[in-house]
């Protein structure tokens, strides 16, 4: 394959030679980036800017309909801060994000290490472990809801049979367990994607290193830490950022299982924004929450990436 390429290029000039020098060379990267950027400007920038702008206007069903939305400055934010649920939701968001990100990255890495080797039946296992991600989210969440059900839930039945609990427990109805029960579903659903990313990255690691690492049972942990992780750190960082974003914006899991309840015990900022926006039709306040969430995400991600870059520069 490589040899053939070499032949053709030597025989006749390729159309792509115009990118080799001069203006072509300077334009080359821009041309490659351009289509993606254009689409991003069209379909990402406008909606996001408009979403942020709404946070400073009084946008309700009524004002939207009349087309006259008064500018209210920071009032939407003040109203959000005055809501006692906001603090609760912020705290829950932190718990939700930390648990999800740590568990998904940890499990995802473990699964990727398990699955990267070619052993008989690996295709079967790889496909099987991808299942949670492939199941349509709405159906997956409703299935989990049934599995947790205090009357017919299989989770309860199995835990009772295993002797872990004595009686069926309303996992989603107990203020102490609701958030964690949803978290388990979310981890189940999110891990395969992390696994896939890390699995793809592991393939780029020189085989000899992995072989050595997998063989040396005693110092396996050290090999993992000193050899494998540094090799896939870029993908790991990407997986961390993406899991972070996707978790904060994961809506279906909490909404369809608990709607943030009982008694707001599983309310996160996203569900709060949804309630403001689409149950109370107060888009201004919803956008205020969304904007804070957005700013928080931007800051956290930027700091994280800067830290990584700084580390790499060392």
């Amino acid at each position: 394959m490589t040899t053939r390429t070499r032949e053709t290029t030597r025989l006749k000039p390729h159309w792509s030679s115009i990118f080799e020098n001069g203006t072509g060379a300077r334009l080359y990267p821009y041309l490659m980036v351009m289509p993606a950027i254009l689409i991003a400007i069209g379909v990402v920038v406008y909606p996001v800017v408009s979403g942020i702008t709404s946070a400073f206007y009084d946008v309700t069903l009524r004002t939207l309909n009349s087309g006259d939305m008064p500018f209210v400055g920071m009032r939407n934010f003040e109203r959000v801060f005055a809501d006692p649920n906001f603090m609760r939701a912020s705290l829950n968001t932190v718990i939700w994000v930390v648990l999800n990100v740590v568990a998904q990255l940890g499990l995802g890495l473990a699964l990727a290490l398990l699955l990267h080797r070619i052993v008989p039946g690996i295709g079967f296992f790889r496909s099987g472990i991808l299942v949670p991600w492939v199941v349509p989210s709405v159906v997956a969440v409703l299935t989990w809801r049934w599995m947790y059900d205090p009357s017919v839930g299989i989770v309860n039945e199995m835990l009772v049979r295993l002797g872990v609990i004595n009686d069926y427990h309303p996992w989603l109805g107990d203020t102490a367990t609701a958030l964690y029960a949803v978290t388990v579903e979310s981890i189940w659903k999110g891990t395969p994607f992390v696994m896939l990313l890390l699995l793809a990255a592991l393939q780029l690691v020189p085989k000899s290193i992995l072989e050595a690492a997998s063989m040396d049972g005693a110092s396996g942990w050290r090999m993992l830490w000193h050899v494998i992780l540094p090799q896939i750190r870029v993908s790991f960082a990407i997986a961390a950022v993406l899991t972070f974003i996707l978790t904060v914006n994961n809506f279906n899991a909490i909404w369809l299982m608990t709607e943030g309840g009982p008694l707001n015990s599983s309310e996160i900022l996203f569900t709060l924004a949804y309630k403001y926006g689409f149950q109370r039709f107060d888009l201004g306040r919803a956008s205020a929450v969304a904007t804070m969430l957005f700013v928080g995400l931007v800051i956290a991600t930027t700091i994280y990436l800067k830290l990584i870059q700084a580390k790499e520069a060392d």
Partner: protein
Amino acid sequence: MRNLLKSGAMAAAIMAGMGTAPGWADNLVLWVNAPLASGPDAPLYAELKKFETETGNKVEVQAVPHMEMERNLFVAMSGGAGPDVMALDIAWVAGLADAGLLMDITEQSAPLAAQYQPGPLAGGRYQGKQYALPLYTNNAALIVNDKMLAQAGIDKAPATWEELRAATVAMTNAEKGTYGISFGSNRMGAFQLYPFIWQAGGEIIDDAGKSHVADPEAIAAVDFLAKLYTQDKAMPESVLTAGNWDEVHAPFIQERAGMVISGDWAISAIKKNAPNLAFSIHPLPQGKKAATVIGGYNLAVRQGTASPKAAFQLVEWLTGERSIELMGKYQRLSATVAATTPEAIAKLPKEMQPFMAQAGAGHPRPVVASWSEMHGVFGNMWDAVIRGKPAAEALAEANAEVENLLAR
């Protein structure tokens, strides 16, 4: 940047303007809740065919699941678009009317008003103006497992609060794992408890717009129900989680709960999932008086539709006496007066008859702009009470929130 949203809204307004320009034909877009148009053979289509041939208008049906209806209406109507005629849960009318999104049909509907049952009709009225007419109605009744009741040594279905409590306790058996009555959590539970407030002689919001949420009657009702769980342990644990009707029905279907408060939709669910369960349907037990809660769907016309006349024609067509037959095909109840005559009731399937028979005791939920939100307040109140908060305290807090919403 400041003007971004404005320009968006302007674009929307222009679009809406284009919508109002006289079109070339009366093409109506009708949004209905998904079950009414569940397939190409749904009875609705045949009925619309008749409407089309008779009036010359065309109707395009777009089925929207209940879960997404409110959000989709909101998004579409904020974007200056939306259907010409829409089916609305009766609890949504006030909010949309308040925002000016529904066409005032007071005048057109005045001559027709007498043909509808007063309760459902009132559900389409907001601040003295009619915005919607009832498509079908339903209400909550007491569904009883006959065998469990007999085994508990009780020979007739409870008709008063005392009898309800006695039966509930009698059917509860910790050893066998049976309970008296299955109840929902949050909004489901709130829907089930409203009738008890009215039965106690209380009110939620009076006609003058004053909140009575913390009145002694309401406290008595909530306290009565909550104690069935907190004190008597006579409700299954699903009262903590059940967020849809299937989960409310589940203990009843499993014969772990002897009674459930539900509507006509429970009939097919029980028959399908437990074909051998013998059950009977009774009016809700009386407190100081008989009362039940009205649910169902209305039809409304969007403010700014291009064909207001044809749109109202369609509303009239579907909600009128034709609805007796049409809704019958869906096992639902027409909201016309003609459907409540003894002859009409006799024609209904046997299990449906108790619902129609008690329609007269039906109360609509308060028609106020922020009802959806208040319903959520009640849901949270119920969640708190069954977790041990005293009813008086929980209702006082709920009352403060409701008053806040009313003041807005």
